[in-house]
């Protein structure tokens, strides 16, 4: 069966022939057994295809709707967006809250009063001053900063050499109060920066803490940065840890005792 015959066959089977074409085709079929057989075979093949198509249609019906798939995907993305929008403020809140708590707790965690010194040179020269100094230090060491402060102020007022060790301990004592008097502490400690090289590192540390406690975080960070940028200065590592916002427990700082009887201080 050639292409034309097949076309006639399919045209006849699909009903596209005219009446005359049909009549001639039937006439042709009557004397053509081979064509009849080919027609029958074609019919079987067509039947097989129709049956297969029925099966494929059943398979097709079982497919999830592509639109549903897309809408489901869109729905999942929408839900994800909603969850994210709801979670984000919560996460931010807890993050900021953590930050706030960290900031608030830093001073309490890190502030430790500087160690007490031996008798000051100046105090040795005046026995009355020595008495005052000893009493101030006793109160200071006991944590009774409110009692130590007046004594330190008395000493500060009578300090002949502008070494401002008294100012230093006065500043630290102000920070030790509850609540800390940060402005007075800063004022005392700034005097130390102006005139005492040996204690300037320590003073810088406590000034930073004072500003921090006061809420002037940016100013405090500047001081911490100064300390962090200089190797081997007092609490250099601790300043770096603070700037990197390390956990409070991991911040290592040193309230080293200061020995005034060392050769450096006997100049």
């Amino acid at each position: 069966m050639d292409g034309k015959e097949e076309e006639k066959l399919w045209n006849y089977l699909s009903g596209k022939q005219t009446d005359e074409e049909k009549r001639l085709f039937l006439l042709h079929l009557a004397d053509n057994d081979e064509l009849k057989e080919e027609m029958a075979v074609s019919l079987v093949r067509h039947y097989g295809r129709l049956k297969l198509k029925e099966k494929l249609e059943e398979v097709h019906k079982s497919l999830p709707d592509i639109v549903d798939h897309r809408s489901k995907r869109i729905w999942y993305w929408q839900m994800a967006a909603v969850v994210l929008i709801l979670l984000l403020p919560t996460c931010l809140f807890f993050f900021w809250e953590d930050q706030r708590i960290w900031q608030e707790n830093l001073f309490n965690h890190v502030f430790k009063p500087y160690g007490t010194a031996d008798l000051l040179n100046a105090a040795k020269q005046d026995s009355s001053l020595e008495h005052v100094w000893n009493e101030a230090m006793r109160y200071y060491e006991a944590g009774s900063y409110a009692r130590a402060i007046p004594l330190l102020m008395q000493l500060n007022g009578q300090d002949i050499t502008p070494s401002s060790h008294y100012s230093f301990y006065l500043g630290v004592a102000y920070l030790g109060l509850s609540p800390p008097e940060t402005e007075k502490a800063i004022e005392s400690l700034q005097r130390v920066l102006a005139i005492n090289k040996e204690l300037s590192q320590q003073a810088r540390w406590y000034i930073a803490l004072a500003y921090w406690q006061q809420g002037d975080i940016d100013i405090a960070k500047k001081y911490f940065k100064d300390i962090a940028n200089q190797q081997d200065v007092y609490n250099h590592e601790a300043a770096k840890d603070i700037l990197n916002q390390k956990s409070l427990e991991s911040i290592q700082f040193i309230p080293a005792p200061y020995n005034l009887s060392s050769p450096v201080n006997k100049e």
Partner: protein
Amino acid sequence: MGWGRLYTDNEIISGIRKGGSQSEVLLRYVYKKNWPMILKMIVQNNGNEEDARDIYQETIIIFYEQIKKGKLELNCKISTYLYAVSRNLWNNALKKQRAKNNYYQFVQEREEQKQDSHISVLLKQEKADLLYSCIEQLKEDCRKILVLSIFESKSMKEIYPLMGFQNEQIARNKKHKCLNYLKKIVFRSVSEADILD
């Protein structure tokens, strides 16, 4: 879409060629796996989901027949083959529709075809019913042997044990008898259809 077990192309082709229930499983697998790709291709080329379904099913039938005839020689993946066949079928369909190079006329004709399609579908269905009725006048064993030998392209050697015959010659004789009977039916039915038309 979960696929369950994954099949290789070779497994699919040899499994379909063997036939049986596994053939149906594999065909279902192929159908489900490649449908989204074909749907996307046709929808992106001025078709709709219904067009895609028709073209895709025709593609799968071609794929199936080629395997059964032993004529499928792939030097590419099955999905690539199906895509190429579908694309060709769809392009041919589009060419026929766009013969007049007039987009608006094309759209209008599509609308008219939609209106007429109801009628044309009935006519097609009537013819399909007529053909089914011809074939289903045959007894089941006749239908089976004719479909196995003609549509599934199985040899008598493969068919006779499936039909429960003793040897190939018996199967061959049976097929011959069934085909003759079908010719008589078709001739008679063709005449009736002709009168109805």
